[in-house]
């Protein structure tokens, strides 16, 4: 019998003689049965249409599926875009804001400006400047008192409510308090503009404006304001400004009773020794004081 005769037989490929031989062989009955029974076997049901529909769902409506899946994505994009816009908007806005520096009472700050100019900010003062524009114009807005060491370069302007000080490269001090405006030039030349009137202030000169009255005085050339060395110096300044400065330097509340606040004071008081400062103010002014906790009461010497 030839090779693989069983597969030939079931495929009806056997010759007459071979078939005869096979029929006579052992097990033929079983083979015949296997053939007959397996002829009536079938595989599990398979719904061709349903299967095709399932595939069409995965293939044909590609565009539709994409639209669906894109929808949450675009929503996400919208939110993301809004967030990016907000953040960048806030960034640009905050960046465009001026740099703002302030000091509390009894506090000094040294600020180095972008061109290495130095500013020392006295107690209870604040200044602001635009860092981005610094290369094109050196503008500072000041309220309070500050000492400037200006690096040589373009016009340097300090704007205050009381007047504007313009320099090229120098050292000068500016004070602007309620009703009190004083510019001291220590080096170089500064130009002070008060109510449209320009005054050129050379080194060693001081310009003071107290309640509308402008007066000039001298300071040490190449020096520096005394507050840098923790002292406050006054030359013929009404007592009210002196006491205001004392309040700022020592963070002490000042109360006065029966005192002439317009009386001028010339002198110096310490900025870090409160007791000493009180004496420095009261003795030359011939007034008395009572210091309790965080409060000081100045009263006339002859008051009971």
């Amino acid at each position, binding site marked *: 019998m030839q090779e*693989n005769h069983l597969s030939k037989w*079931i495929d009806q490929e056997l010759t007459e003689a071979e078939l005869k031989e096979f029929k006579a062989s052992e097990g033929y009955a*079983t083979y015949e049965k296997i053939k007959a029974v*397996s002829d009536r076997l079938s595989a599990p049901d398979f719904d061709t249409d349903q299967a*095709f529909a399932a*595939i069409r769902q995965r293939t044909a409506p590609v565009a539709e599926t994409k639209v669906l899946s894109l929808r949450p994505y675009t929503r996400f994009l919208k939110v993301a875009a809004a967030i990016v816009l907000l953040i960048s908007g806030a960034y640009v806005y905050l960046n465009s804001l001026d740099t703002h520096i302030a000091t509390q009472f009894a506090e000094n700050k040294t600020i180095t400006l972008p061109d290495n100019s130095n500013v020392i900010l006295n107690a209870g003062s604040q200044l602001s400047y635009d860092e981005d524009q610094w290369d094109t114009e050196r503008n500072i807005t000041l309220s309070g008192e500050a000492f400037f060491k200006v690096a040589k370069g373009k016009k340097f302007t300090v704007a205050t409510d009381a007047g504007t000080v313009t320099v090229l490269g120098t050292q000068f001090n500016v004070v602007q308090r309620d009703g009190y405006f004083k510019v001291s030039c220590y080096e170089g030349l500064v130009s002070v503009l008060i109510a449209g009137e320009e005054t050129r202030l050379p080194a060693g000169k001081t310009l003071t404006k107290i309640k509308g009255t402008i007066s000039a005085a001298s300071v040490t050339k190449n020096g520096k304001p005394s507050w840098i060395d923790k002292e406050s110096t006054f030359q013929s300044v009404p007592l009210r400004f002196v006491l205001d400065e004392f309040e700022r330097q020592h963070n002490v509340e000042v109360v006065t009773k029966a005192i002439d606040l317009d009386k001028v004071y010339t002198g110096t008081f310490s900025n870090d020794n409160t007791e000493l400062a009180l004496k420095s103010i009261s003795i030359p002014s011939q007034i008395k004081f009572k210091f309790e906790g965080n409060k000081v009461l100045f009263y006339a010497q002859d008051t009971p």
Partner: protein
Amino acid sequence: MKDKDTVCEDDTFANIFNLHSKTVFNYIYYKFGNEEKAHDAVQEAFVKLWENCAKVSPAKAKSFVYTVANNLYLNVIKAEKVRLKYADKTLKTTQESPEFLLEEKEFKEKLERALQSLPENQRTTFLLNRIDRKKYAEIAEMEGVTVKAIEKRMHLALKALRAKIDGI
């Protein structure tokens, strides 16, 4: 000519599907005895065919789907029980005695158990030939072997089935 007759044409694709999907299903089912996996294999194979319709010519589509279906579960799942239906409707028309019917039923169960114990490739060949009426040449194409190898598998399958049923 090549523009007109590609698998990407809806009609061509549907045609190929109708011709081969059932056999792909059976082919995987005979191998592993898992209907769900067989359904998945059909889906996977034809979705792949659709995605690659530009690269696969209609002539090669058939062997493409068998290859994909086959590779999908290559060495992944073990054969489960292959449950086959018995087409009793053909018998209803005949006037067989109840004894004969019972005997046939018993024989069918024996055959199923015997099929179960066959190596996967012999069982697949046997069932593709008996149920799907596939010629040895076709089965050889699906399995990627020679016709001779399929004849050998068929021969061995029959031999093993008979031995199992007769308890040799």
